[in-house]
């Protein structure tokens, strides 16, 4: 192997068929680790607080994680294709503000909800258009639209909060079937659908192809532009749905709803094993990591750790999810017998690239 190939590999280069099996094995391995961590967290939670394994608590736990979980689903697909969408939480906020705004303007609720979803789709399409047609880096574009959509939320509602929603609808966000919150059931259905699409359809396979090597995928006949446009639009719609759920759960439509959620959603996606250079990851991994974060947050809250301290936990999880596998592979590299006299200086010098 010459140095240029090593460089390419270091930057997440082309994946070939022989790597498929290894990739799958690695993915299953990571999910196993997540599963074990989850079990450990549940056990620790019960030890810390006897109220942990009650149905009331789990209803809360599941209800709290639904919005971020909804955001994380389409984000998984987007990160697999080596893009990123930081505007998801702002679309959540926009949909929430629009909901309150239209409700105050006396629109009937059956008209308001589809309008919010449509607004989300439009927002997602704006992202997609700028990224696909103008070929702008998605990191920059979504930082811009993050601010833009949040700005629109403030233009709609200002500093006010709308809180008088009809009980039939607030029950949507608030009610339960058994001990499972209704929004969680929505999420579960969506998650299963997403998993099927990603792992069992040709469309799903094209996502991995685009993430692995976009040019190669394009030349293989994959319609990368259309696919990405669809992904961002779907992300917009699902974020808008999350906004509706949030509004009804908290009975409160405010311009700053959901601020910062994108970071939690991203943390869950990366912790779930979706690679930051694209081309690998599973929906199940994201699901497990979401549950893990939710369990840790809930257990710590029950022993009165404040919400803000929990941010340390989320941040640490985010970073370790990338550092640990990297460190492991670096250690493995060092102990692997060398077959050539090539030094790995160029590899060592390259700096990891941001998703763009």
């Amino acid at each position, binding site marked *: 192997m010459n140095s240029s190939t090593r460089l390419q590999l270091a930057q997440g280069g082309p994946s070939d068929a022989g790597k498929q099996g290894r990739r799958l094995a690695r993915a299953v391995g990571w999910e196993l680790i997540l599963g074990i961590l989850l079990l450990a967290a549940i056990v620790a939670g019960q030890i810390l607080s006897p109220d942990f394994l009650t149905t009331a608590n789990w209803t809360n736990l599941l209800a709290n994680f639904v919005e971020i979980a909804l955001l994380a689903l389409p984000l998984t697909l987007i990160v697999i294709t080596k893009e990123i969408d930081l505007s998801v939480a702002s679309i959540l906020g926009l949909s929430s503000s629009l909901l309150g705004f239209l409700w105050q303007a006396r629109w009937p609720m059956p008209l308001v909800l589809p309008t919010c979803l449509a607004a989300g789709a439009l927002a997602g399409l704006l992202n997609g258009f700028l990224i696909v047609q103008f070929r702008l880096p998605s990191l920059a574009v979504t930082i811009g639209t993050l601010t833009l959509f949040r700005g629109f939320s*403030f*233009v709609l509602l*200002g500093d006010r909060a709308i809180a008088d929603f009809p009980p039939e609808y607030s029950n949507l966000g608030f009610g339960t079937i058994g001990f499972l919150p209704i929004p969680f059931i929505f999420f579960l259905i969506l998650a299963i659908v997403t998993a099927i699409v990603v792992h069992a359809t040709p469309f799903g396979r094209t996502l991995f192809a685009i993430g692995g090597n976009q040019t190669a995928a394009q030349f293989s006949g994959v319609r990368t532009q259309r696919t990405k446009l669809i992904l961002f639009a779907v992300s917009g719609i699902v974020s808008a749905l999350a906004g509706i759920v949030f509004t009804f759960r908290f009975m409160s439509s405010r311009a700053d709803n959901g601020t910062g959620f994108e*970071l939690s959603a*991203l943390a869950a996606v990366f912790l779930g094993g979706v690679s930051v250079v694209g081309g690998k990851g599973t929906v199940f991994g994201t699901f497990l990591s979401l549950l893990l974060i939710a369990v840790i947050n809930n257990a710590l809250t029950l022993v009165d750790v404040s919400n*803000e301290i929990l941010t340390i936990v989320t941040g640490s999880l*985010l970073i370790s999810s990338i550092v640990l596998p990297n460190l492991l592979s670096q250690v493995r590299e060092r102990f692997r017998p060398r077959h050539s006299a090539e030094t790995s200086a160029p590899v060592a*010098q390259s*700096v990891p690239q*941001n998703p763009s």
Partner: protein
Amino acid sequence: MKRDYLMGKFGGLSQAWERLLRSREAWLVLLLAVLVIGTASANTRFLGSQNIKDLMLNVSLIALLAIGQSIPIIMRQIDLSVGSIVGITAFLSGLIFFDHPNTPNLLVFLVGTGVGVLLGAINAALIIWGRVPSLIATLGTLYIYRGADYAWVHGRQINAANVPASFLALGNIGFLGLPLLMWIVLLFLVLAAVVLRQLPMGRECYAIGSNPTAAVLAGINVHRRVCMGFLFSGGIAGLTGVLWLARFGTVDATAGLGIEFQVVTAAVVGGVAITGGSGTVGGAALGALLLGVFNSALVVLRVPPFWQQAFQGTMLLVAISVDAYLAHRLAIRLRIKRSHL
């Protein structure tokens, strides 16, 4: 021959003219002028001395952070943890004054900046040794530093009454009519500009941002430059935290919350392309000034301040599109040039 000579002369002039037109800084100054003249004609109080002083003070902090942010962005990295670093050092400075009221101001500045550099070093370690992309690394440290800030501050607050008057005066008194705070920002602006333009280390930053692979192959010590970039960004954020205390006087755990996106917007609007390899610190400062002037104009014109964020987002998107368009044109021109042998 005379014709060739004249063509050369005019060619030179038109080239300079073209360069000016393409200069982001020139466009920003023009936009600023339009904004200022427009608002002042609607409400003359806009140019009042108190108003200008307030505007400059508000802008200085963001401008300083934007200057610090430029270096990582030029190298195609990003530092999102700056807001959290500001929060920590702002409270730390206040706490030092609270516990030891006779501390010399300079010492507080050094401590604040030092803590900022330390936090920046953690970022650098994660990025270089942990091989974590800077977006994710600094996103994580944004969370971790802010959480640590909350845990440490624990609902407390530093009041202006606990801070020595000489320190608070930095945000008020100065010379030549500008507060001292502003002069500090200008100083760093000049320093950073000189390093980037004149020193080889500055040129290497641009090289790393334009084409990291080529930079590595050209023998540039990429790791060292990136590390220094984050140390610089962290140190500037630490310094800004100290100045934050001087400006606002009261600090709690929410100082600097959410400011990172404003800073990135200011830098990108100012011409520091997010894809790296281009832009100047002067442009970043002008970007911060433009955003600040716009916010102030909204207030004076009694437009609800809620349009601020929408405007910021739009400006960022416009700036990115323009940058991409210019880069595209440049690529085409280079291709044509090369093919003409």
